[in-house]
């Protein structure tokens, strides 16, 4: 049973069971997001985005802007649709047969769901770090070099070497792997693999980076490194990060969006959201009452 279904059947009970928080009840379909979804200099702009997995309505009427040179954190309970929404932003959902996306998502004013739009340059521009580390079963070097190679970003082998080193250093992995670049990326530990994937993504220098729980498998030291990287990247890039850690959201992001069962419940300045949440669900979630 999916989260939504179980929530629905619980909602139909005449007397709420003890311990079931109000938070597991679905919101009305015409729910309006609390807070200002628009920003002045939006890099990406989403309007009335709906996502269906077959019959399942996974994202419901979401409007959201992603500001230039900003980090936006997406938080919410498991299964609320954070990954799904993030994957809409570089059309990764195209690869799922049953998935349908409606609404408008624009990158610099250009609709990315336009029939004529080529997804290859889009994905080169909007890079992604996936929730589960997915290195290629190739060498560490080739993992990083693959993107620059297919896009022709490096004119020479030396340049490619530089890109590999720079990307791995930024992802905080260089010191650990510099002596074994020719060994398979799949032989690294889970956390190392995740940093390898981060390095692979930044190697093609995307302008927008989507990160789906990039630190879920990392220890505090590696996490700190990645957060540092995010902070550094923010100067030139736009970043959307999904995280289950409130502290991380508070540390790295300027704006925070709270999702709940497919709805975007509340969005606002991170400091606002964490100190003064306006919606009851947001408050319950960030104070740890459910989620």
């Amino acid at each position, binding site marked *: 049973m999916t989260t939504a279904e179980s929530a629905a059947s619980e909602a139909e009970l005449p007397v709420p069971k003890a311990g079931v928080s109000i938070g597991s009840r679905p919101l009305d379909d015409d729910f309006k997001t609390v807070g200002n979804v628009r920003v002045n200099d939006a890099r990406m702009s989403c309007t009335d985005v709906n996502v269906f997995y077959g019959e399942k309505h996974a994202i419901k009427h979401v409007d959201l802007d992603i500001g230039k040179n900003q980090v936006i954190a997406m938080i919410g309970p498991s299964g609320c649709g954070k990954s799904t929404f993030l994957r809409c932003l*570089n059309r*990764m959902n195209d*690869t799922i*047969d049953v998935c349908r996306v409606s609404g408008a998502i624009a990158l610099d004013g250009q609709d990315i769901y336009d029939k004529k739009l080529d*997804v*290859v*340059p889009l*994905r*080169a521009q909007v*890079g*992604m770090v*996936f929730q*589960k580390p*997915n*290195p*290629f*079963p190739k060498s560490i070097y080739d993992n990083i070099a*693959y*993107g620059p190679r*297919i*896009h022709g970003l490096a004119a020479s082998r030396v340049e490619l070497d530089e890109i590999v080193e720079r990307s791995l250093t930024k992802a905080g992995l260089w010191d650990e792997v510099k002596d074994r670049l020719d060994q398979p990326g*799949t032989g690294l530990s889970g956390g190392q693999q995740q940093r390898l*994937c981060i390095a*692979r*993504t930044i*190697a*093609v220098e995307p302008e927008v980076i989507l990160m789906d729980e990039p630190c879920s498998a990392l220890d505090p030291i590696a996490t700190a490194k990645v957060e540092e990287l995010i902070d550094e990247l923010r100067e030139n890039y736009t970043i959307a990060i999904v995280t289950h850690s409130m502290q991380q959201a508070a540390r790295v992001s300027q704006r925070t969006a709270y999702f709940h069962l497919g709805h975007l419940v509340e969005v606002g300045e991170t400091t606002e959201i964490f100190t003064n949440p306006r919606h009851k669900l947001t408050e319950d979630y960030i104070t740890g009452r459910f989620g």
Partner: protein
Amino acid sequence: MNDATQNRRRAIDVVNASLKKRYAREARFRRIGLGAVVLGLVFVSVLFFDIVSKGYTAFVQTHIELEVFFDPAVIDPEGKRDMQEIARADFRKLVREPLRALFPEVKKRNEKRALDGMLSGGAPYQLLDMVRSDPSLIGQRRTIDLIADDDIDMLVKGHIDRNAPPSDRRVNDQVIGWVDTLTEQGRVKRKFNSGFFVNGDSREPELAGIGGAVAGSFYTLLVTLVLSFPIGVAAAVYLEEFAPKNRWTDLIEVNINNLAAVPSIVFGLLGLAMFINLFGLPRSAPLVGGLVLTLMTLPTIIIAARAALKSVPPSIREAALGVGASKMQTVFHHVVPLAMPGMLTGTIIGMAQALGETAPLLMIGMVAFIVDVPGGPLDPSTVLPVQVYLWADSPERAFVERTSAAIIVLLAFLIAMNTFAVIMRRRFERRW
């Protein structure tokens, strides 16, 4: 609180109570599995033992050592050393004479004929070949091991019962006496039967070999491999990665699965109607055989290749697409290389199937009696399993061991191919 824990049985007690039963069930299951494996192995080893015990003697051939005089008066009376003339010379006389000289007491015509018949009809050609490669032999005397007739071969190998009534055996007492005399003189030799591996088919068992059939199988499989691997892999890649998922692709999928189950003889009929009658390709040719076997193995390869492509985790595709690879790059840089071991395994299994296939090849005339070893995919030829089928039908005792020997060779090829498939899979298997 205390009451509750006392009234409720502790879970670990329940677990302990059920343990014995669980282990018994497990042991029972293991014994049944082991039994099945042992039974299977017994059947296989009985089969192998039977074939090998019948067939191994075919790998040696009885020869009779005789001192042959390359008589210039017989070979080249005019002394011109013209090979075409020489080829027409009566070499039978040359092999006949030393044998008759050993048994001067033989005078009657039919006895003489029986004595001559101890040597194979191929023995004169042995001499001819020697002269061909070295004409200076003419006029010299040489001790040569001449191929014995298949009946003598069988007698020497003990396949003919000496105590059976003379009417029931193919060699009479007189011949047995001669063979024993020759054996005492140390003239009867058993040598490795290299002719079995290089000769084509023959009516004379001692001259018959699998060389022609092996070459025919080789050309047939070559055509099959060259066609079915690229076509099968391309079809699988298209269907799995690029084809829109709709009713048409479902229909194609169902039909491919159906084709895999079509009796192979139907493909033979199709080949006869299409390739031979319609396109006018030659009968009995490995090319046509290869085309027919391509039709037959394609479904196997496509199904295996699709399964291999399906088993590549979607996360790898997402990773490639995520850095901006196009669909085509994703497929050919990542998915196909990862699926390659599976595809190769499927292909080799398909090839092994094709190697053992007989029925469809009968339909396209590869069952003809062909003496020459084919030199290319357009020459008429037969294939190993069909050779087995042909020999199994022959009445001579000597063909029985040759049939088994041919089966041994066929099985050796099959085992080698399957082992190769397993090694490939082990070798290239990757983990993610």
